[in-house]
Each structure stands twice: as structure tokens, then as C-alpha cells.
């Protein structure tokens, strides 16, 4: 009797977690695949359409536009986000005074809830908002006249605005991860380089950069996944998907398709395509950059 209990005991321990994960994570994953083969508005009965949803996606210019927007946002926020974060992290690692204060300052945007702080940025990005006032006064220092930028009303600027916001919001996280790694690097490497007479750039290029590679790869992967799932900034800054749908990301399009247009089957097909894109990107990054990331201390 006791023995049989102890045999099933471990399963009882993992049961609660597995039950939830099965019902709300694993099962839906397959359910989504099934649903993507149907036309369904949640009210009238499902209609089997085979792969037609996927065929329609191929011709759906709105979907491709949303994917294009997502790629633009990802590239923009990753290039600028990681680049700036690396610079700040390197500066912070230079044994400066008041490190805690600076670190907190850079980290605070990351702590603030996305929804609330995105509303603040919607205010900052108004035609007569803070950003334009600051830019205008900066330009007037050089006697240049800057026309009012309509950040959230013009397609090009709206994309830039979203990237600025996302970079600002997520930089703290990247800096923190970079910084932790930078402070971990054994100082004897730099001492050895000093003896060899290496300059600051050479030290960065041949010591810091390769040793940071695994961290960079990690951040790259996580940022890619994050920006492919981006929803809140768009939903708050441009609730209608932006001028000419210029800020409609894939997830936003998915949300609209399902919950505004009631095309649930079609939305599931979109979700699956997105899933494969993210998966492919993650694997690709691992493969391409994984080799370079082989450095270990």
C-alpha cells in the first residue's frame, strides 16, 4: 500500500502544474493548429476550409505589411537598443562613482508598467508635446527652424516613434545584463593587454567583445522574441494601428483579426505562421551566432 503511494507520489507533485500547463498551453497549441483549418466566428458552426486560410494569408497584403512593420520595429529596436545599451554598460563598468544611482536611472523605465508609461509617451510625442519642444529649442540653438513633427500621425514618424519608445523602455534590461557580464570579466585579461600595450579600442575589440558574445546572443534572441510579440506600445500609442496601418504589428493584426473582425480560424493561421517565424529566427540566430559564441572564460 505504502509502496504504491510512493510510486505515484512524484506524479502528484507535478500534477497541478502539468494540468494547468496542459490545458492552457499545450492543448491550445494543437487546438490552434486545428482551428487554423476552419472558418469560425465563434457563433455559427465551424466550417472546414482546409489550408485555405494559409492560402489567403499569402495574398493578404495587410498581413505582409504587419510583418514588415514588425521586422522594422525589431531591427530598429534591436540595433539601437543593443548598441546604446552596450555603450552605456561599458561606461558604467568603468569603476565610476555613483554606479547605483546611474544604474537605477537607466533601469527605471524597465520597471514602469508598459501601459502607463506608454500613455506618458503618447503625451510626449504629441505635435506640441515635450519631444517637439525640446527638439525645436535644440535646433534653434543653431538657428535652424524645425517644422512640427507629427510623430504619431505620419507613417514614417510613427514607426520611428514606436522604436524610440521601445528602445527607451527596454534599455535598462539590456544594460543590466551586459553590465553584469562586464563586471564578471576577469581583470587579469585587461592587465595582460596593458602590458602588451593595447589601446582602449583593441581591448574592447579583442577582449570585451568576444567575451560578451554569449550575452549578446542571449539578448539578441530574447529581444527578437520580445519585439515579435510587441503589442502594448502599438495599442497605446496608436490605438487604431497607426496612420495607414504603419504601426500595425503582427500581434496587433492578429488581435484585430480575431477580436474585431471575428475571424478566429484565420487568426489562428496567422498565429501559427508567426510561431514558425519566431522559431526559425531563434534557431537561425543560434546557428549563425552560436559558433562565434563559443568563448568561455
Amino acid at each position: 500500500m505504502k509502496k504504491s503511494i510512493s510510486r505515484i507520489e512524484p506524479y502528484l507533485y507535478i500534477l497541478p502544474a502539468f494540468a494547468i500547463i496542459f490545458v492552457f498551453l499545450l492543448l491550445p497549441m494543437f487546438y490552434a493548429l486545428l482551428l487554423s483549418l476552419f472558418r469560425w466566428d465563434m457563433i455559427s458552426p465551424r466550417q472546414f476550409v482546409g489550408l485555405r486560410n494559409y492560402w489567403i494569408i499569402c495574398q493578404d497584403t495587410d498581413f505582409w505589411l504587419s510583418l514588415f512593420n514588425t521586422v522594422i520595429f525589431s531591427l530598429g529596436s534591436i540595433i539601437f537598443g543593443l548598441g546604446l545599451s552596450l555603450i552605456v554598460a561599458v561606461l558604467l563598468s568603468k569603476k565610476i562613482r555613483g554606479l547605483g544611482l546611474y544604474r537605477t536611472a537607466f533601469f527605471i523605465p524597465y520597471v514602469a508598467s508598459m501601459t502607463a508609461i506608454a500613455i506618458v509617451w503618447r503625451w510626449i510625442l504629441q505635435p506640441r508635446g515635450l519631444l517637439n519642444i525640446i527638439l525645436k529649442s535644440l535646433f534653434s540653438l543653431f538657428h535652424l527652424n524645425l517644422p512640427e513633427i507629427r510623430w504619431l500621425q505620419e507613417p514614417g514618424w510613427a514607426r520611428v516613434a514606436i522604436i524610440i519608445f521601445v528602445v527607451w523602455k527596454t534599455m535598462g534590461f539590456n544594460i543590466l545584463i551586459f553590465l553584469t557580464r562586464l563586471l564578471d570579466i576577469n581583470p587579469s585579461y585587461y592587465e595582460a593587454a596593458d602590458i602588451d600595450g593595447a589601446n582602449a579600442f583593441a581591448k574592447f575589440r579583442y577582449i570585451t567583445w568576444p567575451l560578451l558574445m554569449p550575452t549578446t546572443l542571449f539578448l539578441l534572441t530574447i529581444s527578437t522574441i520580445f519585439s515579435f510579440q510587441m503589442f502594448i506600445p502599438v495599442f497605446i500609442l496608436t490605438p487604431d494601428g497607426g496612420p495607414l496601418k504603419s504601426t500595425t504589428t503582427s500581434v496587433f493584426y492578429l488581435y484585430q483579426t480575431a477580436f474585431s473582425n471575428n475571424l478566429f480560424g484565420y487568426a489562428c493561421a496567422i498565429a501559427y505562421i508567426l510561431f514558425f517565424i519566431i522559431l526559425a529566427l531563434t534557431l537561425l540566430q543560434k546557428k549563425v551566432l552560436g559558433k562565434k559564441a563559443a568563448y568561455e572564460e
Partner: protein
Amino acid sequence: MIVKNDHKKIISPRILIYLMLTIGGITMVFPFIWMLSTSFKSSLEVLSAQISLIPERKKYIQVDGELEQVEFSVARELQKTLSIKEGKIIETFSRALPAQSRFKSDISNKFSLFRVRLEKYFHRFQSRAEISAALHKFGEDTVGKLPSLPSVRELPVNFRRQLRFELGDLGKQLEAVVTETTDSKDRLRVVILAGDKRGEGATVPLDEIIFKRFLWNNFKKAWQAAPFARYFINSIFISILVTIGQVVTSALAAYAFARMRFRFKEFLFLVLLATMMIPKQVILIPDYAIISWLGWVNTYYALIVPFIAAVFGIYFMRQHFETLPQDLFDAASIDGCGSFRTLFLIVLPISKSVILTVALFTFIMTWNSLLWPLVMTNTPEMRPLQVGLAVFNQESGTDWELLMAASTFSIMPLMIIFFIAQKQFIEGITRSGMKG
């Protein structure tokens, strides 16, 4: 010699580093300061093109129990009252103007006198008596002395503009006094524009003018503009239950994976890890279908139950449980402790910091999530804070001072938690690599 050189080299980049970091740091923090500053301003000051971090001292009157800013005001002489109407012209003095010839210079003179008086007195007006005195003087000195001459000429448009411009440089005290002609007669009208946003006129005694710098009232207004109390209660309730649930299920599962032997252990753990690859949005729609099939749409169940287990917690705790020394478990076993009691009486008490990290992150992620509750709720009573805020954002379009006030009190709870548990927080992020 070499040492000295080195020293010089180091100093100047140091300053550059501090400069760059300081500029960067200010950029990061400034939106918060701006948010706070805006939430204390009046709806009129919000629209001004100056960056004023500390709100200006402004004049207010009470209209229907609410403070309304009176930015531009001249009292009506006879009634000694203020007329308030935004964008609409209210006459104060209406006097016929002299004949065409000397008229322009005359009026200009009168106005400059008027302006001097106002500049001198207006910003210091604290009572009816003071304003009355100033106006009386103005009346005596200028327009009051002009003869009443009916005429059929209209003022030229550019003259009006000129006066407007001239008076405009009074700036804060008196920006919108303009002249206007009516009834096809040359009459001077001193015109008031004031800050009743709804454009309704109101007449109040002058000694009811209130001087204020910080509008604390904005917070109250924002709080009442939407059921924020309910939103907060919902968010707290949901986040706490999810956190407790997730810590318990994660601890149980992690303990089994770390310390027990059973069939398919490796396989099951791999399955768990694989589910980490599933993006949230892929399962959003099937989950919605499941939840509506369960009849849970717009209930707390929909917002709590799916989240009381997560792979992140299990993974994170398992890593920790594996590092605990085996002796501990042997001792517990010898003392006759079952594994359940070992977990709760021995393992959990010594794993406080890990549990706290998992709890902290679960709480924050639940508190911050938007898309899921947005989809799963459809009435204000069920909305958590983030959804409520997003709806408020769409509904109150450009009431920036209210939006900023709402953002401020929505951001505060997590900020406070962050400053209390900063160490835990930063450690947790660097160890787990969470990205909101």
C-alpha cells in the same frame, strides 16, 4: 613621468564618461518627471509651449465645485465680477471711440496705460478691492474720459491685430485682451478670454479667485473619471492569487523534478521546457475558445486559473533545489519526515530568496499584462488596472493632466515595490533573464 602622463590621459575621458552617463540618465528619467509635472498642471497650462517642470502659480475660480483656471481676466467694472468663457469674447468696457483722425494713437496710448496698470497690479490681485481699485483707475485715466461719439466706421482688421500683439507681450498676466467693434459703431471693447473648458459662461465675485500652483485635485478627478478603485482591487486580487498559486505549484513540481525519481522524468521536463518556446499570442485564441467553452469569459477564473502554473517558476526553483545538499534530505528522512513535510518545513524555509524572486516576478508580470485581460474581460467591473488604464487612454483622448495623473498612480505601486526590493529584483533579472 609616465605615471603623470597616464594620469592626464585618464582624467579627461572620465569627465566625458560622467557627462554622457548623466545626459543618458536624465533622458531615461525625464519622462517620469514630465508625467508628474503634467499631472499637477491645469488643462490650460498643459497646452503651453514652455517646459515648466514646476507648475506656475495660477488663478482659479470655483465652478460647480470644481476649480477652473482663469488665465486671462479683467473684471467687469460695474458688477465687479468675472465673466468666464473660453474662446468667446466677453465685453468688459464698451465705450464709443473718438473720430477717425486721432483715434489710433489715442487708443494706443490708452492701452499702453492700461497695460502698465495691469502689469503693476494684475498679478498681485488678491481681493475684490484691489481689482476694483485698478479698474477704477483704468476707467478714470483712459477710456472713461473719452467722449461718446457714435460712428459708422469699423475698425480696420490690422489695427485689431496690432493691439492684440501689443497686449500679447504682457504675457502671463494678460494675453487675450483684444478689441472688437460691434453694431457698426466704433466702440472699444476690452475682451476677456478665460478658461472654462466647457465654454459655459459663469459669473463669480472676484474675491473668490483662488491662487494655486499644484493641482492635487487632478488625481482625485482622474481617480473618479473611471472606476480606478475597482481596477486596483481587481489587479491586487488577481496578482496575489496568481502569485500564490504559481509559487505553490512551482515548488511542488520543482521539488519532484529536483529530488525524486520517477519514470518519464526527463521526458516530462523536456516537454515543460519545450512549452517555453510557445509564444503567448499563438495560444491566445484557442485559450479564448477554451475559456468561453468553460463559461469563464469575464470572470476572475479566466484571469487567474491559466496562470497559476508556469514553466519559468518550476525551472528556476528546480535549479535551486538541486543545489541543496543531500545530507539535508537524508537527515529529514531519518527523522521520519515525509517528502511533503520535508518540502514545506525544511526546503521552502531555506529557499526564501528564490521563492521571493519567483513571487516578485510573477506578481509583476501578472500586474503588467494587458493583452490577455483585454481579451478576456468585457465589463468595467472585471477589468484589471492595465486594461482600465488602456480604456481610459482611449476614452479621455487629450485630457493630458488627467491621463498623467492616472499614469502616476498606476505606476506608483510597482515603483515602490522596486525600490523596496531593488536588490532582489536586479538579482532575479540577471539570474533568470526575464524580459517583460
